[in-house]
Each structure stands twice: as structure tokens, then as C-alpha cells.
């Protein structure tokens, strides 16, 4: 299933709606970076509200997407991490390798990116 990438002004919004296979994650990553490049997006929001599990593989993928997006000039915020998922990620030992900005929800994510831009 192709995951739609929404464009809002100069921000891209990706809403992950179901558990992804590794192949789908890879594809998504590719699509996102492609799109950033094409439209010159300044911000990227990945909404994972629907994810009830985030394992280290998914975390690493999100991290990789964020890093690459940043390199292309697009700041990334991951939004919608569920409380149980957040705590589980911490217990899993994520902090060792997680450098992505996070926000509670889409609105807060947009707020962060806008604020950045105003600076």
C-alpha cells in the first residue's frame, strides 16, 4: 500500500496508518526524500499515532529518514507516539540512538516547525 505524502505550504506530512513491513518502510523513506528534493520542503512531519508497536528497527528507520531529511534541509518531527509506545521505547533502550524531535500531535509538530521558521 502506497503511503500518501501530503504537502502543506512548505511542510510535508506523512501519516502512517498501519503497521509497515520493512519493504514498505524503505519505500516510504525513498518517497519522502524524493518529495523533499522535488518540492524543497522545509519541514517534515511523520505522524505515527496509529502505530501500536515501534521496535528498534522502526525506530532506526524513522531516525534514518529524519537524518536524511535534515541533510536535505527539511527539519523532521515525529508526532503521535502513544504513551505506552513511548515508555516501551525507553525501556527498550532507545535513548542511545534516538535524535529525532518529537511532539504530541500534528498541531504541536506544526507549531515547532513554524517557530523554527520564524527565527
Amino acid at each position, binding site marked *: 500500500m502506497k503511503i500518501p505524502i501530503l504537502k502543506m505550504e512548505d511542510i510535508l506530512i506523512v501519516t502512517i496508518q498501519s*503497521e509497515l*513491513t*520493512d*519493504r514498505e518502510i524503505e519505500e516510504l523513506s525513498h518517497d519522502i526524500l524524493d518529495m523533499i528534493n522535488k518540492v524543497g520542503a522545509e519541514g517534515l512531519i511523520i505522524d505515527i499515532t496509529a502505530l*501500536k*508497536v*515501534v*521496535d*528498534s*528497527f522502526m*525506530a*532506526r528507520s524513522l531516525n534514518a529518514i529524519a537524518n536524511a531529511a535534515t541533510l536535505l534541509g527539511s527539519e523532521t518531527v515525529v508526532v503521535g507516539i*502513544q504513551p*505506552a*509506545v513511548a*515508555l*516501551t521505547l525507553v*525501556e*527498550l*533502550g*532507545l535513548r*542511545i*540512538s534516538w535524535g529525532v524531535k518529537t511532539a504530541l500531535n500534528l498541531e504541536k509538530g506544526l507549531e515547532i516547525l513554524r517557530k523554527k521558521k520564524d527565527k
Partner: protein
Amino acid sequence: MDEQTIEVRRDIDVILARNVGRKMANEIGFGELDQTRITTAISELARNIVIHANRGKVVIREIQKGDRRGIEVVCTDDGPGIEDIEAALRDGYTTAGGLGIGMTGAKRLMDEFHVESVVGVGTTVIVKKWLR
């Protein structure tokens, strides 16, 4: 008591295994947070099979000890085995460019963790979590 086996070969089987795990954890009576912990641990271990051993299986079952109930996940493969188990149980150790927190993370997320591995023969990881 309930028991289910998931053959693990490809990444999509990882999703299957954790869905079965969540459903069972839920039926046993684990709360949302513990369900997430259990499902995440299953995801890590099942993925290790796919990545490091190619193929294997995950058996998930309800367990009981006295009046305590819980869940047990047994992940077996006949892959290459783990050469240095001690190292594999250290945060950040990976031989495949992963984050290296799958094994240690699963250990932290569950109540009991047990690994047996023979080089050239295969690996078995058993984890358990008890209902509080």
C-alpha cells in the same frame, strides 16, 4: 491452555507474530502497557530470526505457575548461532548494522529472559512475562 506457532521467514511474519502476541497477551489479561512491551519484545526477537538466521519459528503460549498466569514466547531457529553471547547481551552490540538493543531490550521489557545458542546449530530465546 492456548498456544500458537508462527513460522518466520520474512518481515511480514514479524508483523504476524506480534499481532498474535498482542491478541494473546490481551486475552490473558495484560494491560495496554504490558501488551505493548510483550509485542515489542516479540517483534525484536522475530526480527532477529529474519535478519540473523533467515528462518525459524515463534511459539507463543499462556503459562501458569501456582496461581500466577503469564505469557511465554519461544523463538527458535537453526541459523548460524551466536558466537559471543555475552557481547550480544550488551547494549549497542550488533553484527548487522542494527541498533543492537533487540536482545537487551527484550530482556528489559520482559520478566524472564533465557538464551541458548550453538554456533552452526541455531539459537533459542525464551522470554516470559507474568501477570501482576
